[in-house]
């Protein structure tokens, strides 16, 4: 009854896509209009927190290696922490803008975890390629949450932050358990399927 790993990636991609659309909409209308309804202000931090909670079952059930468990556990923790900090900032319990560094840590830890837990080379097969790509994308794009911390009203930082979630969603949707990437697949990867 346990879903294949690629299905889990696609389900998380759906969450990240929704998160990306919400953040794009927030950038488009501006925080003043976005926060006119209280539930909307809590929406994206709550989804981020929820995705962090959902990563715990992934850690528990997908135990193909210790590194996978540690990586999934680290993602669960930082995503919950990042979401919780943003929720508290919206609520007004936290005031300092430097708390937003929590989301920068989400990007940094997630990127590092992707890179560390992928033991195969870029062109081993598609999921290996995407793990490397997502890892470096998250590490490099941590500049957006960092810029959002330093300049909270920056449109470029907010737009880049939002688009990164859409980019991660697209990469997660591309993931397959065993599939070639740009015509490459290692004979050690197993029989490919579409």
């Amino acid at each position, binding site marked *: *009854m346990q*879903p*294949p790993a690629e*299905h889990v990636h*696609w*389900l998380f*991609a*759906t969450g990240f*896509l*929704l998160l990306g*659309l*919400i953040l*794009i*909409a927030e950038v*488009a*209308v*501006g925080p*003043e*209009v*976005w926060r*006119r*309804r209280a539930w*909307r202000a809590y*929406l994206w931090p709550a989804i981020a927190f929820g995705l962090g909670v959902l990563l715990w079952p992934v850690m528990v059930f997908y135990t193909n290696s210790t590194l996978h468990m540690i990586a999934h556990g680290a993602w669960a923790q930082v995503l919950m922490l990042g979401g919780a900090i943003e929720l508290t900032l919206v609520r007004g319990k936290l005031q300092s803008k430097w708390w937003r560094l929590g989301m920068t840590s989400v990007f940094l830890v997630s990127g590092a975890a992707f890179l560390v837990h992928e033991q195969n080379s870029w062109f081993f097969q598609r999921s290996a390629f995407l793990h490397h790509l997502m890892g470096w994308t998250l590490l490099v794009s941590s500049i957006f949450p960092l810029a959002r911390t330093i300049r909270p009203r920056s449109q470029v930082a907010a737009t880049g932050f939002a688009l990164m979630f859409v980019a991660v969603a697209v990469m997660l*949707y591309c993931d397959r358990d065993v599939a070639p990437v740009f015509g490459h697949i290692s004979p050690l990867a197993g029989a490919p399927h*579409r």
Partner: protein
Amino acid sequence: MNAELVSELKTRIHLTARARIVSALGPLTVLAGVVWALVQPYRITLLHPHGETFWFLVVEPPLLVIAVGLFFYFVIAPGLLQDLEDHRAASR
């Protein structure tokens, strides 16, 4: 032209652009899902089930993309557009 009038006109154009972005996000996402389904129909296993397991029949990526677009369009966009309009009216 009166400077105040020009300023108001600029604000209206800006708000219209904002409203267009919000209105377009859902349909564009749905369109992306439909195009994906047409380009890779084999990713919708419901169209040609051949003994797939439960998860292959439930989790269909192009349909998930379409669902996200529809959710945004019907649940989030209407209230947001209303608030944009209210904000514009209040700032007149």
